[in-house]
């Protein structure tokens, strides 16, 4: 088992002290890259001055653009990492996440993207102990967990409308070969990306262990799609199912 070097990208689009909890959970287990809009730079540097992290600022504020800026930084500054992982600012790594990544990364050397379980947790007031309340995208992962499909199957992914990219461990070469997230997607940019990856033969396999807690917080960054109508959601899903075929980030009409 070899020790895997991981770059964690934390996109942060608004002020929230929860980002420091996320950074704490990574600790020395990886390179922390916090990707923020320019407007947050002053606030972040004040709060995060004690953290051993890299802060990159952007003129764009959308989630995929913040992530893409982090990926660009990895490519230019730390190209030798084994994996890139995206961590939401209100999430935290599980205590044994690095041993899980080392173990599965070593045994599953040929797999491009390790997709561990993401545990949905809540926190009681005044208590830092996470309480497990669910697991994200387990419906998509269930056949994987039984190893009926081996790696993610493209047709299965077309039927399954959401794959959780946050918390996955992605080999950097995948971004080089098949591109980053499409910033024209207001939602389901990660679905389009995973469809594009699997269509191009990138292997994704579910790791039956949890490497991060996905926190249920009031100010969740990832809730936007729930505030729009089903009609809009379906249109963006349809867009993802059309656009994965194209490498370029084309303008999308919804």
């Amino acid at each position, binding site marked *: 088992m070899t020790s895997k070097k991981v770059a964690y990208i934390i996109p942060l689009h608004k002020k929230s002290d929860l980002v420091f909890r996320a950074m704490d959970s990574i600790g020395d287990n990886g390179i922390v890259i916090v990707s923020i809009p320019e407007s947050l730079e002053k606030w972040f540097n004040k709060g995060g001055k004690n953290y051993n992290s890299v802060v990159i600022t952007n003129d764009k504020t959308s989630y995929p653009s913040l992530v893409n800026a982090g990926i660009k930084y990895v490519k230019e500054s730390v190209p030798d990492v084994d994996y890139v992982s995206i961590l939401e600012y209100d999430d935290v790594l*599980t*205590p*044994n996440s690095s*041993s*899980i990544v080392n*173990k*599965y990364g070593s*045994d*599953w050397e040929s797999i491009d993207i390790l997709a561990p*379980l993401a*545990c*949905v947790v809540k926190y009681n007031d005044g208590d830092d102990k996470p309480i*497990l*309340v*669910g*697991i994200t995208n*387990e*419906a998509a*992962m*269930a056949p994987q*967990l*039984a*190893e009926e499909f081996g790696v993610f199957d493209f047709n299965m992914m077309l039927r399954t409308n959401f794959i959780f990219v946050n918390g996955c461990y992605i080999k950097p070469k995948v971004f080089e070969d098949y591109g980053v997230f499409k910033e024209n997607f207001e939602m389901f940019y990660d679905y389009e990306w995973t469809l594009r990856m699997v269509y191009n033969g990138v292997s994704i396999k579910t790791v*039956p*262990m*949890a490497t991060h807690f996905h926190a249920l917080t009031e100010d969740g960054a990832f809730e936007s799609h729930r505030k729009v109508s089903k009609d809009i959601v379906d249109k963006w899903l349809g867009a993802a199912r059309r656009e994965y075929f194209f490498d370029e980030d084309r303008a999308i009409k919804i």
Partner: protein
Amino acid sequence: MAKITPKDLDNVIELLENGKYRCYFFVPDFDKESGGVKLVYDHVRCMNKNGFNAIVIHEKEGYKPKWLEQYYPVDEDGNFENIPIVYLGSGNLPISMEDFFFIPEGFPNIMENLANQNAPCKRVVFCQNWYYVLNALQAGQFWNSFGISDCMSVSNVQTEYLKMIMPQINYKQVYGQISSEVFYPPEKMTDKKMQVAFIPSRDGGLKSYNVIKTFYAMFPHFRFIQFAEVRNLPRDDYARLLRESAFFIHFDEFSSWGTAPIEAFLSKTLVAGWDGFGGREYMNTDNMWVVPNGDILRLAMALGNMIETFMMDDIRPETWTAMETACENYSETSEKDSIIRTHNEYRQERIEEIMRIRELVERANKESTNDE
């Protein structure tokens, strides 16, 4: 009946001392795969490989459990190597004073028949399941009611129970063995599936299904966990299933020592379950998620806890070590050592017993000569 003489008894002692005696093991004709039947066959084979003369007795002439063919090599005539079989039905079983007759705990009718026939051999109960002992006997009836004074038991917890209900019996313990050539871990632990293997509970599976439904109800986020039922699977398929499963759930409330958790331990499969009382010999909170027998709710909770701990990669190294340690008692070597030791002790005790009988016969002969 011919009068027994000291010379006859000298002959018996000589035969015992020279190992020229037979150990019969009664086995019911049972067509379904049974751990208990296999344990007797293993025992007999082990004895024969180590210089004893052990023989299986079945009831119907010509009967042989077909399902055992996957476990033992068969010779040209279709007989199991090192496991001779004779039949009660043949009616001409040679049984002498130097011989031993081992009877399973669930067959007091055999014990009674042998007592009624004044069978000259030493009779011993081979107890594999504490639960059947009193179920098979009538109230107030014990093994000594049939002239039996010895019992060979397969677990120390079971022996403790037997000592409590029948303190007048002498107990010895033998170990069974689980083959690490059949049950072994996968090449990589990352090959394990999020799957729970289980053997249904003895009530036709009702309690096991209730535990599974309770588990799904209590942990809806674990609905991706699959359960794989072990029913009528050939041994190698069963071993493969254990090997590929991350978890095993043990539903046996009445086991003597419980082979399945050891098979799971050897496969590096985590276990939650009931200890079946007899399994307390090795099942404990160090090596598994053990809960009180029959407690459905707590077993469902323990299963959830075990899966969550695994998912977090938080299984303590001590747990894996404790699983390995538990298996050490049930290796081929421990089985062999315990069997040789036990049967040598039986032989020695029988020699001493016959010597005592000889003294009594001699004394009685002297007294009758004096009277004349």
